[in-house]
């Protein structure tokens, strides 16, 4: 129960619902879910709850598109261009994150908020709530084959933005620790 609730809370926060409305939206979704399950008890609870949240979001039914911007950005920034002798190899340094660093909840949300809403929605449903693609299709009307490229781009952008959160952590560290933790890229 708590795990399902946590997914619903993360979804409304990630989608930028006003803080004042978040609790009400999640509670209404729970009440809808309870009613729906009374009528058809076999439906998975998490999918039912998140479906009820999604129906309340303005972005519902509007997934798709908006991958081009990040794809272009990633291609230009991350890898050597086709006319380079190292074409297709990394153009930037990608150090390991220190083993003792983990992203906090606020940092996860900061990274999510930089994504287009459709990507946030897909990332939370597929990777945070771990819903199968067919359940997500029922909620947002995007077939699994169409979810895959959108999810890839959403993940790539999310990892990039979370790395920027990591870099900000490094900047806040005292200089001696900063060098130990590989912030000098």
């Amino acid at each position, binding site marked *: *129960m*708590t*795990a399902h*609730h*946590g*997914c619903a*809370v*993360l979804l409304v926060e990630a989608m930028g619902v006003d803080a004042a409305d978040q*609790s009400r939206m*999640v*509670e209404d979704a*729970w*009440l809808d*879910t*309870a*009613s729906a*399950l*009374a009528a058809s008890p076999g439906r998975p609870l998490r999918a039912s709850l998140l479906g009820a949240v999604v129906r309340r979001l303005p972005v519902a039914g509007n997934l798709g598109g908006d991958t081009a911007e990040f794809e272009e950005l*990633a*291609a230009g920034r*991350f*890898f050597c261009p086709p006319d380079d002798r190292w*074409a*297709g*190899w*990394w153009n930037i*340094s*990608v*150090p*390991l*994150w220190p083993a003792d660093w*983990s*992203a906090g*909840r606020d*940092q*996860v*949300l900061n*990274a*999510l908020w930089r994504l287009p809403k459709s990507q946030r929605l897909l*990332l*939370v449903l597929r*990777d*945070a*709530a*771990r819903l199968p693609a067919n359940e997500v299709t029922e909620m947002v009307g995007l077939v699994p084959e169409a979810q*895959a490229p959108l*999810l*890839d781009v959403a*993940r*790539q952008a*999310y*990892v990039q933005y*979370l*790395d920027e959160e990591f870099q900000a952590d490094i900047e806040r560290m005292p200089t001696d620790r900063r060098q130990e933790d590989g912030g000098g890229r």
Partner: protein
Amino acid sequence: MSALGLSCEVVFDLTGAWYDDELSENDQNAFEQHLLLCPPCLAYSDRLRRALGALAEATTVAMPAELVERLVLREHSPSHSGLDESGPGQRRQGKMRIIGNGPRQ
């Protein structure tokens, strides 16, 4: 596909499928051999795994007791139970169905 035949850009594009365990056995071997030879790709795949782990961790939020109580009250109210012998606002005793752990003692 072989490890040496994969550019980092291709590995980058395959990282999601690798995370989801959707690569064929051959592709997975080539992918993982590339990681052994390529520290940046190893670092990137580790970032993806940890970033998505942090996303799942972010769902750890306590469910407010008031909400649980409201759901239980609603579930056991006469208007939802279909019973009409008790008056409005009276709670029907019984085992909670929607909230899995049963009513608080």
